[in-house]
Each structure stands twice: as structure tokens, then as C-alpha cells.
């Protein structure tokens, strides 16, 4: 049986179509990533799988239990780590976990032991009796993860698990996620708009854009798709003209013009660059800078969506931090 299965999952909010037909099959123990910019429909998709948003049409099931028909059973099978921590600031870490365990009907005799285990796992044992208000952002996220695990869910949803955290804390959280997935065989679905996060953690990735999956495969296969090297040339003027010329070269696998930058996939970047520069000079087109890198998920995202994820992320990230600060 599949851990998660969706069929033409569709969600319309008033007049916005947030999710437009998502089909997923996720195996038990898989660490699956939904990658896409904010507003792509990742959170809505997860919310439907978690039974808090009702699909407009289509179906979704967790271990064969339909989210619409058996929401109660589904809720017992899943754990969720939200984008925004939803802990009680006025309670201690232990009290937060205890409350959670009771709501999930964790047997009374097991609660204390399980709390001890999950606190050890996220290295918060020494802060267990401190009020959450005094936790740092990273500690809160770790406690949130601990809470998501307390009732031994079969599927754990992580919605932007490292959003707004510093690089060191992010790496720390990645380690927990990987360990949990490997050691406890918990199926995990995470949403992220961090390319490196998806690359590092996920067995398989679905790139989501405008409510649809535009590509789905392992990170390596997706990168293989783009080719050996990615060359990026800044072309303030005449980008289109240069693109047409370079496309005619035999070793150029694909070209794309995004925000004044010409992106080319080639097998060997080192040998391609001098040729590209020669063509540009012949055409009289100025190229202020040129760079070369191995393909990343970022390139894959751009290939499938024609947009960079970073520009959007930076703006959204700022807005998010801002919103957080106001609370």
C-alpha cells in the first residue's frame, strides 16, 4: 500500500485555483519534497492531505484512508510540523508535549517515556522545563518537530521546516529529519522553497508551480536532465539576438533568457565559454559577465518554470520575517 496517494487533487478558494490537479504516489519510508515558490500551492496541497482543507475535487488517501471520508483516522496517522510554530509560549517544552500527547490519546503510562525520548532526539532535554517564550527560533522548531513525533505518526508533514532559521540551525534540523527518516522509517513530506534543502534531503522531488506538478523525479535525475554544466551570460542588450545565434551551436542543449541573463546547458562549460564569447563579439553584443556551474535544482526550477525562485523567495522571506516580528 502507498503511504500517500492523490488523484487529480484540486482546490479552489473562492475564485483562486490554488491547486490544479495533483497526482502523487509516495512510498512508505520515502522522504518526498514539494518544491516551489510561495503561492505555488504546496501548503494547500499539504493542508488537504492533513484534513484541514477540503479538496474541491479529486481524492487523497493516507495508507488507504480517504482524507474526506475518514478524516479522524487520517489525523491519528499523521504528524505535522507547521511553517509557523504553533506552540504555547506560556507553557514549558514538557507541558507542550504532554498536552499534545494527551490529545492524541498516547497511553498514560507511555507519555513520560516518550517525552523523554523525543526531547533527547532534538537535544532539548535540558530545556524541557523552561517556558517556550524563552526558546530561540531554532529551539522552537526542534520542539515542534519533537511534538510532531510524539504520537508515533506513520507520516510526518514538514511545512517549510527551516524557514527563517540561520544556516547552522538549518543544517542541524536537516540532520534530525534525515535521522528520523532513516531510523524510524517515517514517511515524510516536506515543502520548501530552498533548493539546497530539497537537494540535500529528499529521495524524490516534485516541482510545483501555479498549482501543478511540472516535474517529478530524484534530485540526481532532475539535474541530469539539465546537462553537464550551466553557463550564465549577463546580456543587458541583445539577449534575444544572441540566444538565436547560440542555439545554432551543436553542443548547446538548451537556452533560456531569464531577467537579462542567458542560461545555456552544455556538456563542457570550459570549452563552450570561449566560443560563446567569440559569437558575442562577432554580433557586437556586450557581455559584462559570464559564469559557469554544475546544475542545481535552481536550474531545474528555472528550466521548468522560466522563473528564478530566488528573487521571489527573497521578497517573500522578508515579508515573512516582517510578519513574524509584528506578532
Amino acid at each position: 500500500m502507498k503511504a500517500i496517494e492523490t488523484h487529480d487533487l484540486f482546490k479552489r478558494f473562492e475564485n483562486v485555483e490554488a491547486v490544479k490537479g495533483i497526482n502523487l504516489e509516495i512510498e512508505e519510508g520515502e522522504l518526498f519534497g514539494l518544491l516551489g515558490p510561495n503561492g505555488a500551492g504546496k501548503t494547500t496541497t499539504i493542508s488537504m492531505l492533513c484534513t484541514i482543507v477540503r479538496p474541491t475535487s479529486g481524492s487523497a488517501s493516507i495508507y488507504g484512508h480517504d482524507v474526506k471520508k475518514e478524516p479522524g483516522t487520517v489525523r491519528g496517522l499523521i504528524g505535522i510540523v507547521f511553517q509557523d510554530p504553533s506552540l504555547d509560549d506560556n507553557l514549558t517544552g514538557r507541558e507542550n508535549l504532554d498536552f499534545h500527547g494527551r490529545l492524541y490519546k498516547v497511553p498514560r503510562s507511555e507519555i513520560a517515556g516518550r517525552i523523554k525520548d523525543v526531547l533527547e532526539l532534538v537535544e532539548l532535554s535540558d530545556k524541557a522545563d523552561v517556558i517556550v517564550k524563552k526558546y530561540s527560533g531554532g529551539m522552537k522548531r526542534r520542539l515542534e518537530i519533537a511534538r510532531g513525533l510524539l504520537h508515533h505518526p506513520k507520516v510526518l508533514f514538514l511545512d517549510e521546516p527551516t524557514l527563517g532559521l540561520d544556516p547552522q540551525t538549518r543544517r542541524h534540523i536537516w540532520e534530525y529529519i534525515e535521522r528520523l527518516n532513516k531510523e524510524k522509517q517515517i514517511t515524510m513530506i516536506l515543502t520548501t522553497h530552498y533548493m539546497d534543502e530539497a537537494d540535500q534531503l529528499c529521495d524524490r522531488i516534485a516541482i510545483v508551480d501555479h498549482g501543478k506538478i511540472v516535474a517529478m523525479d530524484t534530485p540526481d535525475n532532475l539535474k541530469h536532465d539539465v546537462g553537464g554544466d550551466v553557463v550564465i551570460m549577463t546580456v543587458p542588450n541583445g539577449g534575444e539576438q544572441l540566444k538565436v545565434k547560440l542555439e545554432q551551436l551543436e553542443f548547446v542543449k538548451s537556452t533560456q533568457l531569464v531577467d537579462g541573463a542567458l542560461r545555456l546547458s552544455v556538456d563542457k562549460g570550459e570549452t563552450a565559454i570561449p566560443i560563446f564569447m567569440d559569437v558575442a563579439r562577432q554580433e557586437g553584443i556586450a557581455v559584462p559577465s559570464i559564469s559557469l556551474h554544475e546544475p542545481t535544482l535552481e536550474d531545474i526550477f528555472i528550466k521548468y518554470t522560466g522563473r528564478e525562485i530566488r528573487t521571489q523567495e527573497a521578497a517573500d522571506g522578508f515579508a515573512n520575517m516582517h510578519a513574524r516580528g509584528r506578532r
Partner: protein
Amino acid sequence: MDHDALFDVWHLFIRAGKKTIRTPVIIFGTLALPVLFLVLFTQIFTQFGNLPGFPAGGYVQFATAGIIVLNPLINAQYSGTAVVDDINSGFLSKMLVTPVNRPAILFGRLLNDTIMVLIPAGITLALAYALGVTVITGALGILLILFTAAFFGLSMSGLTMAIGVTTKSAQVVAGLDLVIIFPLMFVSTALVPYEFLPHWAQAFSNVNPFSYAVNAVRALMSTGFDWSTILAAYAVIAVFAAVTIGATLYQFRSVEK
């Protein structure tokens, strides 16, 4: 509600209680307000008691009944702001993905808020007793007075919660609460006898659930077991509570899109 749902109510109540205890402002307000009201109102309006046609027993005896029900009227906004807080902090969404019984989320909160109404009501009674106020109906009357305050508080909490769940804004809850509280409070029999009110105010008082609650408490304090007044109050409060708590539960459902 089944057995599990009652446990859910209990655990949600414990959580709400811990949060309340750890918010000193709420504790201070709850403890200080009855003292403040009793001292202020009875000092400022004490000459009212000497006016011709004023009920026997003096102003303090008269106003204590109003103040006992005034506390739940004012404290009710904590229910609404707490719900807003739970929505904006993500707590409510978190609850909705757990197997917890849905209405239990509401009733756990209300259980906490009921206790937060009983405490000031008890303080008011004790303080009023020290000022020479008597409860003619004795121990059973006192229990019924506390019940009336709690029951009225429940209906008012329902109102602020319905506003909170609908608007998701603590400012709106606090602002609307004031707009609602003042007419309910002043155009009522809480601080002035019914006969002293102008006609339009009497008409409003006749449909003001707050007046009904005050009249029931006042009867229990000064007149006796006047069942027609008491049961009329319970009927009005029951309808008010059914509407406000019903609206909150209904809005709760729509939180699940």
C-alpha cells in the same frame, strides 16, 4: 459527548488554565476589578439610596447584585481575545489536525473562563458581606447567585468568541466589546432601579439579558426565591448563550475550509 471528548475538554481546560495563571495582568484584573467596582460605584452613587422610591436596604445592597454580574460582562472579552490568539498563533489549526473533539476546543476554554467568572463573583460577595450586605436566601441562594453569574458569563464569552473567530482580530474584539458592554451595562437595572430609568431605557432593559441576570441575582440577595424572576433570567440567558455559542461553533467549522 463521549468519554474521550470529556477528556479532551479537561486537557484543553488545563492548558487554558495554565496560560491564564501565567498571565499576571488577567489575574490582577480579575481580582482587582470587583474591589474597584464595589468601592467606586457605592461611593459615587451612594446618595441614590436615599432617593424616594429607592428599594429598601441602601445602595450598596442594591448595587452589589449589579456588580456581581458586571464582572462576567467585562471579563468575557478575555474569551474572545484568547480565541483570536489561538487562531493567530496557529494553535487552532494545530488542534484541527489532531484527533481532538472539535467542540471540546471551545468548551475547554469556556470551562476556564467560567472559573475566571466565579472568582470575582465570590470576591464581590465576600467584600459586600464585609460592608454589611446580606443574602436573604442563604447558602443555596449564594450557590444560585454564583451559577447565575457563571451562566451569564458563558453567554457573553460566546459573544466575544463569535466575534473573535469571525474577525480574527483582538482589537476588534476589545473595541466591539466596549461598544456592546456600555449600553448593556448602563441601560440596565445594574446600577439604577428600573423605575428610575427613562422610558426608552426601560424598553431596552426589557430585552437586555444583562438586566435579567442582575434582577435574578438581586432577587436572590434581597427578596427571596422569586422563581418567576429567576427562571425568566435563565430562559433569556439560555437563548442568548445558545445563539452566541452556536454562532461560535458554526464559525469554528468554517475555519476548516
